[in-house]
């Protein structure tokens, strides 16, 4: 395994449910190696999305409280950063792709504008330079007519296209880590493969490590190097993907695998 680019120790996210605090993410720890694709697997409600949001500091105070011993990204402890510093990190050193492409983009601004905003904010490019960079980025995510996409509004694009735009935004600054929260769950099967392939290629070129959140073991098998199995806010197993599929150590993992194969639990 390469040197870790993201080191998470004792991350906890707790919310108030009926006035009682409940840990939806319960003191988890893991490493993400440079350039690796790490799957975060679990059923819905196990805390995967909250983990992703916590890494980027996106959990609003009203939704829950986040605490961590450390979230170290390339030497900086994100958990200790003030919000103003965190804003400089988001989208530049660590970025995120979301589950619902249809609502991820702002409907009243053109996609080009939204993509350029990332370049202008983090790479301090001027308007025309940012536009050129955006065009290039759109081509790299596979748009044949990048100019048209640049000028389009989100509602004029399909779900798969919108997701590729978000990926373009996420990879624009060649971040060290990309957190992808079920990026293809809402897309149809053929588009899924396209999007994931493009994503992993781009990440490979830029040396970006991916934390890929998914409940689809097929995706884990095909695209990922290692996997974390999460259940009820805790990580119950972590292993390389081959290892995981051949010899799962935790009974929960075994049940997940069996269910995926269509066998009785």
């Amino acid at each position: 395994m390469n040197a870790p680019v993201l080191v998470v120790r004792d991350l906890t996210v707790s919310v108030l449910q009926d006035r009682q605090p409940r840990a939806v993410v319960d003191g988890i720890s893991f490493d993400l190696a440079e350039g690796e694709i790490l799957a975060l697997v679990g059923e819905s409600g196990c805390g995967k999305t909250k983990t992703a949001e916590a890494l980027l500091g996106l959990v609003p105070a009203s939704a829950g409280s986040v605490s961590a011993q450390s979230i170290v990204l390339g030497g900086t402890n994100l958990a200790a950063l003030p919000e103003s510093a965190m804003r400089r990190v988001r989208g530049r050193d660590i970025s995120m792709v979301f589950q619902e492409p249809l609502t991820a983009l702002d409907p009243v601004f053109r996609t080009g504008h939204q993509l350029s905003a990332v370049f202008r904010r983090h790479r301090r490019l001027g308007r025309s330079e940012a536009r050129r960079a955006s065009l290039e980025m759109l081509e790299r995510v596979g748009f044949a007519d990048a100019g048209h996409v640049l000028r389009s509004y989100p509602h004029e694009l399909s779900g798969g296209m919108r997701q590729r735009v978000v990926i373009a935004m996420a990879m624009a600054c060649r971040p060290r880590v990309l957190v992808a929260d079920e990026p293809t769950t809402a897309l149809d099967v053929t588009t899924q493969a396209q999007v994931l392939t493009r994503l992993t290629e781009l990440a490979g070129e830029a040396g970006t490590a991916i934390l890929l959140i998914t409940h689809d073991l097929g995706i884990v098998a095909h695209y990922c190097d290692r996997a974390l199995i999460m259940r009820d806010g805790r990580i119950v197993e972590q292993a390389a993907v081959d290892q995981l599929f051949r010899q799962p150590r935790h009974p929960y993992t075994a049940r997940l695998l069996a269910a995926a194969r269509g066998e009785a639990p």
Partner: protein
Amino acid sequence: MQYPLRKAFHGLLLVLGVTFISFVLMVWFGPDQTYTLLGKNATAEQIAEVRHELGYDQPFLRRYLDYVADLFTLRLGASNASGEQVSRILARTAPVSLALMLPGFVLGNLMGIALGLAAARRRGQWTDRLISGLSVTGMSISFLVIIIALQVLLSTPYGLNLFPVRGWQVTDLPSYLWHVTVPTLSLVLVTLGYNTRFYRAVFVEEASRDHIRTARAFGASPAVLMWKHVLKNSLVPIITRVMFSIPLVVISGSLLIESYFGIPGVGKVAFDAITSGDQPVLKAVVGLTAVAFVLIQIATDLLYRLVDPRVA
């Protein structure tokens, strides 16, 4: 092509509806002006003549259709009370009402939007609670109380005595500002609570959308999130509210302010016409209001098209 036609049709139905109800209320049930014109010692012949002139002897449908026809051909006639041409009256008073109400209306909405944004941005914190608390307080004070209080505090020797108590002697910019300040202030204070409350709710709703989370995930600051993303996405409900509050605030409000401050605007003219049964003036005002409302609806649709790319 079908869409604007349908809109025009609905607009027409609306105008007909408004004119019909107004006709029934004001013209059919309205005061009988025969005796005001003739005085007490009129002969039967004179009475019959005047009634015929005023059209009182015609059947209901005929009178209504005449009414609508007059409206659409702009045959507004002359005021029964003063004899002045109705069109002259409107031309004289409408600009006054606009000059009187517009500043307060615009300011009340702009401030409401700004305060709503501030409250939504710091939702749940003390800024929000202060603004929300002030809004509820504002909503609980009667318009009349505000007007009286402001008048005492600003225009009488018991207060600052800076502004005029009544009247509208506007000849240039300074005199305009001198006369319009207290009415504008009253209008702002009355509408601010309601506006802030409404806009805050709209912004809170918009701020919870997914694309705001995306923008934050890519490093946008709270100010940018609110003033750029949330605000632009909220333009449709904002426009809806502003446009549809025009009849209530500008027209009804002008009636009250003009009555109170003795300002010769359309509201006061309309009110006097109702209480004295001055039908030509009434016809004109009502018809204009209905047409104005339809125009507002059309303008609203156009504005939607401008600000929201999703509206075809």
